[in-house]
């Protein structure tokens, strides 16, 4: 039974989100802490270094960590406030069980584990191994990610494991593997400093990766031209040399026309193309009709701006192209990524100082997490679960028969669909809040309600976990040792600052206990996170994401190690492709033809407005952590509908008026924020909120055919201005139902 045991309001009253503020005088002991722990922020892929101040086993404050090379003490508001997730009134202090009609009741670990294991066994015996699934997340360390992957394949023996990176970096990963045979940003951000031209496509850098802004500005101080491609004037777009205000869903038309222009003007690196790439002829044939005029018509960007962008890009000697979810959250997310890569390869500006390319990985361990564990089609070391040699290698490391290793399972959204149609009956979730973060979340809720058994491991009772039969109280990032891999590919050390409070346990301990109880204890005989990492090193050895030469000691000594690092005497690889040998089977970088396709849902007379979604600076992902921190919520108390004044006038919408936004999936109400910093044909809603304030009531569940990423960034909607008394939303900010 995965329906809510009681009304959401009653659950919220007990388990939050409640807002945590520091007392005016600060937490006790902040001025004289027992220790100051050098670790990293728990949020985005920048993984800024930070010191956590600890008194009496509680995190009581922070200090800037000036020596960590990426951020040198710099932090965003989320980083400054992240310590408040610790010592939080909503923290789960013991396992819980669902009691129908009453809510959740604290239970002991024995009962919680007995119930969980019995349910897993019953479901797997009744419906088959694959009927029990796992959804994981990449805020987990490399060690935990690896453990979840091994747990699914070895202890559960289910193929149905996927992760929230499916909503994040998978389009980039797929595109990078096609082009380079390897999935990592090719350069560190230090290579931004002397890039002559920087393109940032679909990345609201100053809100989602604020500490990256300083690196972009260092380049600008040195004369770099900055080109931002975004439907909105974001803070980084405001001062850009060129802002290409692309219509959502048309990015690949822009890149195609720019590539065609480079060909027409012969702004190409022929030596690089001839000697180190494949597929150029087919790729330029695909865009030969993509004129600037045509692209202007499709994208809504002026011809002159597209020409200027192509000229700047084509004539630069050094450059860096960055992209993120803005181009990746599409049914053609992989195409968009490949379109960008084609521009990089055509100019040969990669694998050299100040010549870089990369996706900006979003989640804290979005990079490492996707390499080693819980992606449905992947085995450690970024190995392919369908490749016989890769399977055999991992089976040997794990001490199992290759035939016992499950195959490729459903991707995250497809898994929800399989639950919805009754094919998958059980779910374990850790570090994933799909009821907020997946598109079309009415459908997700229906799916959850069909589960026969749902167990959630989490430190707070997030919106999805409210549907659980059993909740296992797990650990925060600062409560375990481990490693993460940053967006630059730098493996860094997460340090344990405190131990889990009350009866809560370390995630690792919980995962190992489940493995033991499922009869696989001999395969999970780890005494520490470092032992798990050491097995991961071996499991990754020889894979494209080779961590074999990375040790805890080396990470600390070097303040991070860039993979690949294949041997103990190897220093790591900050810049890829300097030898011009790519990781594809033929050793060449691959152009890929990209023909323009429209988004899966286009505007029409009934739904005439383009809806796009994104983020705000003070919130992170589904908000499980950041919607519980007072000042971060005060900064953005609710999601607002950003709308251009011309469109607002057309609908008679006034500033802060309530507007019903409807799509073919559902309707939701938001207060309007009328701003000139958005396209006239597009509205924007940030997605971090649940229930009736969730933008994902509206978004569409269509997927990229390759990466299976949902098309969060574009769908069609209609707008209806409301009077407050017409609102059906009640007090919606945190309600689930």
């Amino acid at each position, binding site marked *: 039974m995965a329906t809510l045991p009681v009304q959401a309001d009653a659950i919220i009253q007990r388990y939050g989100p409640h807002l945590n503020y520091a007392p005016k005088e*600060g937490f006790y002991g902040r001025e004289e802490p027992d220790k100051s722990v050098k670790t990293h922020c728990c949020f985005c892929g920048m993984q800024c270094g930070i010191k956590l101040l600890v008194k009496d086993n509680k995190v009581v404050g*922070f200090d800037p960590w000036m020596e960590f090379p990426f951020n040198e003490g710099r932090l965003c508001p989320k980083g400054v406030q992240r310590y408040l997730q610790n010592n939080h009134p909503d923290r789960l202090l013991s396992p819980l069980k669902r009691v129908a009609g009453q809510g959740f009741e604290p239970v002991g670990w024995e009962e919680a584990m007995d119930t969980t294991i019995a349910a897993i066994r019953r479901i797997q015996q009744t419906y088959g191994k694959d009927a029990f699934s796992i959804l994981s997340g990449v805020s987990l360390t490399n060690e935990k990610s690896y453990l979840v992957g091994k747990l699914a394949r070895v202890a559960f023996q289910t193929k149905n494991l996927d992760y929230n990176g499916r909503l994040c970096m998978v389009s980039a990963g797929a595109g990078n593997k096609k082009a380079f045979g390897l999935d990592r940003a090719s350069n560190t951000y230090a290579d931004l400093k002397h890039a002559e031209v920087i393109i940032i496509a679909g990345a609201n850098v100053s809100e989602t990766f604020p500490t990256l802004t300083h690196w972009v500005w260092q380049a600008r101080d040195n004369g770099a031209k900055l080109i931002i491609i975004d439907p909105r004037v974001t803070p980084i777009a405001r001062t850009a040399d060129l802002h290409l205000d692309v219509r959502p869903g048309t990015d690949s038309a822009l890149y195609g026309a720019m590539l065609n222009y480079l060909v027409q003007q012969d702004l190409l690196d022929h030596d690089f193309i001839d000697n180190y790439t494949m597929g150029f002829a087919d790729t330029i044939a695909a865009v030969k009709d993509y004129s600037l005029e045509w692209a202007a018509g499709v994208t809504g960007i002026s011809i002159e701006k597209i020409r200027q962008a192509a000229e700047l890009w084509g004539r630069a000697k050094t450059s860096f192209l960055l992209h993120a979810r803005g181009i990746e959250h599409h049914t053609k997310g992989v195409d968009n990524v490949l379109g960008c890569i084609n521009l990089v390869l055509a100019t040969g500006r990669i694998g050299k100082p100040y010549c870089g390319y990369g996706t900006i990985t979003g989640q804290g361990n979005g990079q490492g997490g996707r390499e080693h564990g819980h992606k449905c089609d992947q085995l450690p070391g970024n190995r392919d679960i369908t490749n016989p040699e890769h399977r055999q290698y991992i089976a040997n490391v794990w001490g199992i028969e290759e035939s016992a290793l499950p195959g490729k399972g459903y991707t995250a959204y497809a898994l929800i669909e399989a639950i919805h149609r009754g094919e998958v009956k059980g779910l374990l979730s850790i570090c994933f809040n799909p009821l907020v973060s997946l598109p079309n979340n009415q459908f997700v809720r229906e799916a959850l309600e069909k589960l026969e058994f749902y167990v959630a491991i989490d430190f707070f009772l997030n919106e999805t976990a409210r549907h659980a039969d059993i909740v296992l109280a797990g650990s925060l990032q600062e409560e375990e040792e481990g490693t993460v891999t940053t967006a630059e590919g730098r493996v860094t050390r997460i340090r344990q600052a405190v131990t889990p409070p009350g009866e809560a346990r370390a995630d690792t301990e919980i995962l190992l206990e489940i493995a033991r109880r499922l009869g696989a204890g001999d395969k999970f005989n780890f005494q520490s996170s470092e032992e798990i990492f050491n097995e991961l090193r071996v499991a990754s050895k020889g894979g494209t994401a080779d961590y074999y030469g990375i040790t805890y000691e080396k990470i600390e000594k070097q303040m991070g190690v860039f993979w690949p690092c294949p041997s103990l005497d190897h220093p790591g690889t900050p810049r890829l492709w300097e030898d011009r040998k790519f990781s594809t089977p033929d050793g060449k970088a691959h152009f890929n033809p990209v023909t323009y396709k429209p988004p899966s849902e286009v505007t029409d007379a009934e739904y005439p407005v383009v809806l796009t979604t994104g983020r705000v600076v003070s919130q992170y992902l589904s908000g499980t952590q950041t919607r519980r921190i007072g000042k971060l919520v005060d900064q953005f108390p609710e999601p607002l509908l950003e709308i251009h004044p011309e469109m607002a006038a057309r609908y008679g919408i006034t500033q802060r008026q309530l507007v019903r936004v409807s799509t073919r999936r559902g309707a939701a109400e938001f207060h309007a924020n009328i701003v000139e910093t958005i396209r006239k044909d597009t509205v924007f809603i940030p997605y971090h909120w649940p229930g009736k304030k969730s933008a994902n009531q509206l978004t569409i569940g269509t997927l990229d055919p390759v990466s299976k990423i949902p098309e969060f960034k574009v769908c069609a909607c209609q707008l209806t201005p409301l009077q407050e008394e017409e609102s059906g939303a009640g007090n919606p900010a945190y309600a689930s139902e």
Partner: protein
Amino acid sequence: METNTYYRTDQEFFVDMQRCIGCHACEMACAECETNGQESMIHVNYVDRAYTIQTTVQVCMHCEDPVCAQVCPADAIAKDEFGVVHTANTSRCIGCSNCVMACPFGVPKKQEQYDLMMKCNMCYDRTSAGKKPMCATVCPSQALYYGTREEIRAMRPNSEPVNTFIFGKETVKTKVNIMMPKGSTFLKVH
């Protein structure tokens, strides 16, 4: 004010508004200081959100001849030997708000709950120990920079530190600099 040998007189504060991304990290970090009681002494505001995403950040400019101190009837505001204009001496401040009204930059704020003016003292606890002020330490875009004049000139060759402000007939010189286009020597406020 007692001399502290760790205060680095070669280091200055530089504000570059064009870099401000409006993230509020500076405010949140400032508020963490034990003497600030979770209130920020630095303020980030939209210029006019309907038209632009641009924000401004206002920190105490630490005037050479601080008008806040001149108008204080209780002699609660003092400038020290390093040019830092300190927040109101709590035992002297009478909460009259003269300084609040007089400051040309709108910096001092009266904290009604304490009946006391509070403002930035350039993190004296940190700067007197050789550290950077907290806001300039965390600022992710380095719109707030603390370091030497030589450093910022080398790093940002297209900008010029300016510390002369003209308000009508009044000229105000400040310890804090703002970054302006190369060749600028003053900022005139109309």
